C-alpha cells in the first residue's frame, strides 16, 4: 500500500486526538506532503469543533472566575509596570539612513537590556518587552513571545504603532553574530495593532528589531530601528 492509503484511514482518529503520540507524529509528517489528507482533515475538524456543543450546559461557580481573575490581574499588573518603565527609560532616537549609524544608535539601547514581562511556567515561553523609539512610534508598544528553548515560533506583537507611511511596511530583522537578516514584514490595522511571526530560531540571536521599509521589504535596513527587543 502507498503511504497515502496507509495514512488516510487515520484522519478521523487524528482529528479526535485518538492517535497515540508516535502515530500522530508519522501522520503529521504525511500531512505535510498530502493535500488530499489535509483537505479531509479540514472537513472532519468542522465536525469535531461542534462536539462541545452537544454537552449539557453547566454553570461554573462564581468562585472559579474570582480565582482565575485573581491570578490574571496579579500577572498583568507587573507586566504593565515593566512596560511603562521601559518606555520611560528609552533613549530618544534620531532617524538615520545608514545602517552603520543605526548600529551606533543600537549601542545606546544595549545598556538597558531585555525586560522580561512574563514567563509561562506551564507552556514554556517567555515574553520580552520591546524598547521603542518614542519620537517615531509615539504611543506604541511591543513585546516578543519566545519559546522556552529559543526555537522557531517567536511572535512579535505590537500595538499603537503609527501607519508606516504610504507604500511602506514594517520589517522585522534579527541580529546574529553581528549580522542582520530579514525575518518578516507586517502591517498594522487602524488601531496600530499587528503581529509578526519570526521564523528563525532565536538561538545565538542577540536582538530582534523593526524598521520601516518599502512595501515588499528591503535587503538591508534603511533606517535606524524603531523598536528593539534584546533577546
Amino acid at each position: 500500500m502507498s503511504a497515502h492509503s496507509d495514512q488516510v484511514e487515520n484522519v478521523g482518529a487524528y482529528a479526535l486526538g485518538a492517535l497515540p503520540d508516535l502515530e500522530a507524529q508519522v501522520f503529521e509528517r504525511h500531512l505535510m506532503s498530502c493535500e488530499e489528507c489535509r483537505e479531509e482533515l479540514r472537513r472532519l475538524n468542522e465536525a469535531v469543533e461542534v462536539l462541545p456543543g452537544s454537552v449539557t450546559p453547566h454553570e461554573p461557580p462564581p468562585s472559579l472566575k474570582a480565582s482565575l481573575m485573581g491570578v490574571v490581574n496579579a500577572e498583568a499588573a507587573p507586566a504593565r509596570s515593566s512596560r511603562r518603565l521601559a518606555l520611560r527609560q528609552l533613549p530618544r532616537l534620531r532617524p538615520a539612513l545608514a545602517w552603520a549609524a543605526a548600529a551606533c544608535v543600537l549601542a545606546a539601547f544595549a545598556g538597558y537590556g531585555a525586560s522580561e514581562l512574563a514567563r509561562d511556567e506551564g507552556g514554556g515561553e517567555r515574553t520580552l518587552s520591546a524598547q521603542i523609539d518614542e519620537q517615531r512610534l509615539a504611543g506604541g508598544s511591543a513585546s516578543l513571545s519566545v519559546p522556552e528553548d529559543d526555537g522557531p515560533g517567536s511572535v512579535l506583537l505590537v500595538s499603537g504603532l503609527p501607519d508606516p507611511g504610504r507604500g511602506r511596511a514594517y520589517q522585522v530583522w534579527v541580529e546574529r553574530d553581528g549580522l542582520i537578516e530579514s525575518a518578516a514584514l507586517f502591517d498594522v490595522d487602524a488601531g496600530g495593532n499587528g503581529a509578526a511571526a519570526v521564523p528563525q530560531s532565536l538561538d545565538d540571536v542577540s536582538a530582534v528589531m523593526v524598521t520601516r521599509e518599502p512595501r515588499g521589504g528591503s535587503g538591508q535596513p534603511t533606517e535606524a530601528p524603531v523598536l528593539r527587543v534584546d533577546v
Partner: protein
Amino acid sequence: MIRKPFGTEDEGVNYARLADEELMQAVQGGDPMAFETIYDRHGGAAFSLAYRIVGTRSAAEDATQDAFLAIWRSRVRYQRDRGSVRNWILGIVHNRTIDALRRNQVHATRRAGAEGIEEREAASELTDVEVFRRDEQRRVRAAIETLPDAQVRVIELAYFGGFTHNQIAEMLDEPVGTVKGRMRLGLDKLRRELAGAMA
C-alpha cells in the same frame, strides 16, 4: 473602536460590545478586563465541556482554571485567521482536560459516563447565552442521533473519554481498522448533517 493602545485599561471601552476577535487583540496586549469578558462569554461552555470529560464539578473547575490560565499565558499564540476564538478556546480546554484525565488515570471512573451523553442539572432561569447554548445542544445532538450507534460510540469514547483507537478497539473487541473507519465515517456524516441543517 478602541483607540488607545491595548494593555492600558480604558474606562470608556465597552468590552461587552466588542467582538471576540477584537477582545483577543486587547487580551494579546495584556488587558485583563478583555480577558474577563472572554471568560464571561466562553467560561460556561468550557466548564460544561470539562465537566462532560472529567465527570465531577471539582475536577471540571480545576481543568477549566488550568485551561484559561494557559490561554492567558499563551495569548500571543492566537491567530485570527486560524478560526474562531470560541473554537480556539474550547480546543485548548479539551486538550488540557484530556491531558489531565490521562495523567490522573481516571478512565476507569469515566467508562460508565462514556456509555452515552449524560443529562444533569438544568438552570431554572435561562440567560440569552444559556438559551443559545441549549439551542446549539439540541441542534448538534439531533445531528449526532442520525449517526449509527457504533460510530457515535467510538467518537464519544475518543473525544470525551480521551481513549486512543487502540484502547477503544480493545474495549469494544473490534479490529483497530474498524474503529478508525467508524471515526472517519461518523465525523464525515456529522459534518454533512450539520451543513444540511444550516442550509
